[in-house]
C-alpha cells in the first residue's frame, strides 16, 4: 500500500519558486492500480519521482506498507528502493546489455547470486512474455518490447509497489495494449500495488481501479473509477464515458430527455428494456454508447422518453442504481 500525505515540492524558477506539488494526499490500496492523470505541468511526474525516491519533497510523508521513506539516507534508502519498482519515463534500458542483462541489474544490486539470478530473470521474462528475446539487445527490440523489459526489470527485486511514468507514451494502441496487459498481470499474479502516471485515458480505462486527477499541484479528484464515472460533474466521467452527439431535432420529439450512466452487466443489459414494460413509456436511445472499464461494462446513453409516466420512469431508473445525469427537457433535477 502506498500512502502519500500532504506532499509539497517546489523548484527554483526564474521568477521565484515554482510549486509543483501543493499538499498532495493519496492512497493506493494494496493490490490495486491507481492512475494519476492531469494536464501537462500538473505535477504528475514530480509526484511519481518523489514516490520513487528520486526527488526529495519539501514536506509531507510517503509511506510504503507503513514505513515513511522520506527521511531515509544511505544504505536504508537503497534498501527502501528495492521495495519500489520503477518504470521511468522514456527509454531507460542499458543499450549495451541484453534484455536478460537489463532485467538482472536490480538483482546484481541486491547481491543475488548467479544461478538464482538467472532463474529469476527467466521467470520475469516469462511474465512479460519475452522469453525468446532474452539475448536481444534493446536496439533489436520494438518500443513496446523495450517497455515490457523495463517493467520486468522494475519487478525483478520483488518490490511491493510499482511506479510507472507514462509507460505507454510514444506507443501505438496495439503496443500500448501489450504493456498494459503486463502491468495488469503483475498486479494479478504478484499482488503488487501500482501507481501509473499517464495522459492516456485508455490506460485508466484498461487497468486502473482508482484515479487521481492532479491540477496545479493539487488533487482535484480522487476515487474509484467506477464511482467517479457515475458523477456527471467529474472530469473522469467526462473523459471516460462515450461522447454524446448533439441532436436537437431528434430530441424535440420527446417529452423528456436525459443522460443515463449504467454500470455493470445487469444495469447495462436489463434496466432500460424494463422501463418500457413497467411504465408503458416509449424509450429511445438518442446517442452515447457502451464502453468497458477494466472488466466492467459501462454505458452512457442519451435517452428520450415519451409518455405520461416519463418522470416516474426516470426516477425509477435512478433508484434502480443507474445515475440519471440530466433532464434536458421538462422539469430540471427530477432525479440526480
Amino acid at each position, binding site marked *: 500500500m502506498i500512502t502519500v500525505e500532504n506532499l509539497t515540492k517546489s523548484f527554483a524558477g526564474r521568477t521565484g519558486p515554482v510549486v509543483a506539488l501543493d499538499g498532495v494526499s493519496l492512497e493506493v490500496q494494496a493490490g490495486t492500480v491507481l492512475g494519476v492523470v492531469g494536464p501537462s505541468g500538473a505535477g504528475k511526474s514530480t509526484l511519481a519521482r518523489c514516490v*520513487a*525516491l*528520486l526527488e526529495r519533497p519539501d514536506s509531507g510523508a510517503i509511506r510504503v506498507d507503513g514505513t515513511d521513506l522520506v527521511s531515509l539516507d544511505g544504505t536504508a534508502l*537503497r*534498501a*527502501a*528502493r*528495492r521495495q*519500489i*519498482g*520503477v518504470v*521511468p*519515463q*522514456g*527509454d*531507460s*534500458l*542499458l*543499450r*549495451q*546489455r*541484453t534484455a536478460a542483462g537489463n532485467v538482472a*541489474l*536490480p538483482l*546484481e*544490486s*541486491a547481491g543475488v547470486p548467479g544461478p538464482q539470478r538467472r532463474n529469476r530473470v527467466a521467470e520475469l521474462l516469462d511474465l512479460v512474455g519475452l522469453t525468446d528475446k532474452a539475448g536481444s*539487445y534493446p*536496439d*533489436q527490440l520494438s518500443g513496446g518490447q523495450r517497455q515490457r523489459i*523495463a517493467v520486468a*526489470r*522494475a519487478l*525483478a*527485486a520483488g518490490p511491493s509497489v510499482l511506479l510507472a511514468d507514462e509507460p505507454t507514451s510514444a506507443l501505438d494502441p496495439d503496443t500500448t495494449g501489450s504493456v498494459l496487459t503486463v502491468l495488469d498481470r503483475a498486479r494479478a499474479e504478484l499482488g503488487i500495488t501500482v501507481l501509473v502516471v499517464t495522459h492516456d485515458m485508455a490506460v485508466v480505462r484498461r487497468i486502473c481501479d482508482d484515479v487521481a486527477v492532479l491540477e496545479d499541484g493539487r488533487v482535484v479528484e480522487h476515487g474509484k473509477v467506477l464511482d467517479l464515472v457515475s458523477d456527471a460533474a467529474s472530469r473522469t466521467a467526462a473523459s471516460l464515458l462515450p461522447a454524446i452527439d448533439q441532436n436537437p431535432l431528434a430530441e424535440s420529439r420527446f417529452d423528456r430527455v436525459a443522460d443515463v450512466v449504467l454500470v455493470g452487466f445487469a444495469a447495462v443489459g436489463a434496466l432500460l428494456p424494463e422501463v418500457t414494460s413497467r411504465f408503458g413509456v416509449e424509450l429511445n436511445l438518442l446517442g452515447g454508447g457502451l464502453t468497458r472499464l477494466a472488466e466492467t461494462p459501462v454505458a452512457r446513453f442519451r435517452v428520450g422518453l415519451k409518455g405520461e409516466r416519463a418522470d416516474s420512469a426516470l426516477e425509477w431508473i435512478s433508484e434502480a442504481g443507474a445515475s440519471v445525469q440530466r433532464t434536458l427537457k421538462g422539469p430540471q433535477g427530477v432525479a440526480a
Partner: protein
Amino acid sequence: MRTATPWSTVFDMLVDATGETLYMVGVSTLVATVLGIPVGVWLQLTAPGGLKPRPLLHKALGFITDLGRSMPFVVLLIALTALTRLVLGSSIGTSAVIVPLSIGAVPFVGRLVQNILSEVHVAVVEAAVTTGASTLRIVRSVLLRESLPALINAIGVTVIAVLGYSAMAGIIGGGGLGDLAIREGYQRFNDRVLWATVAWLAVVTTVIQFGFTRAARVVDRRRHASV
C-alpha cells in the same frame, strides 16, 4: 650538400624511432587513461545533475583540469624535470618523457571522459538508481559500461594527441619519430629522412585510428554495430 642517406639507414632510424615512440606513447597513454578515467568520473559525478552534485568541488576540479589542458606541453616538459628525476632517477631519455607526457594527458582524458559520461541518458542512470545500486556499481555497470565504445574511441584520440606531444621529446633526449623528423630531417636538411618519417607517421596514425575505431565498433551493441 652531402649524399642522400642510404635507404637501409633510413629504415634503421625509423625502426629505432618507432620503438621509442611506441614505448613513450603506449606507456603514457596507459598511465593517462588509468588516472584520467577517475578524474572524468569524478567530474561527472560532482557536476550539476550528476549523481553526487557538488557544484563548488566540480568547479574547482574543472578549473584545474582546464588549466592542465591549456598548458603548452613544452612548458610541462621542462617544468616537470624535478618531478621526473624524483620518480625515475633521471630527467633525460625516453623514459623521462613519460612523466610529463602522462601528466599532460590526464586532464585531456579527464575532460573527454566526462563529456562521454554526460551523454549517458538521465533516464538510464535514474533507472539504475531506483534499483538500489550503489554509486560504485552505477559508475561501473552503467556509466562506464554504456560508454565503452566512446571511451575506446577517446583512448584512440588520446594516443594520437600524445603522439603529437611526443614530437617534442627530443628536447630532453627522448628520441622518437617526431624528434627524428625535426633533428635529423629538418635541422640537418635531410629530406629523405624528413619525408620518410612524415609518411611513416601518417601510416602509424592511420593504423592506430583504424584499430581503435574498429575495437569500439566491435564492443558496441547498438544497432549500427550488429556484430
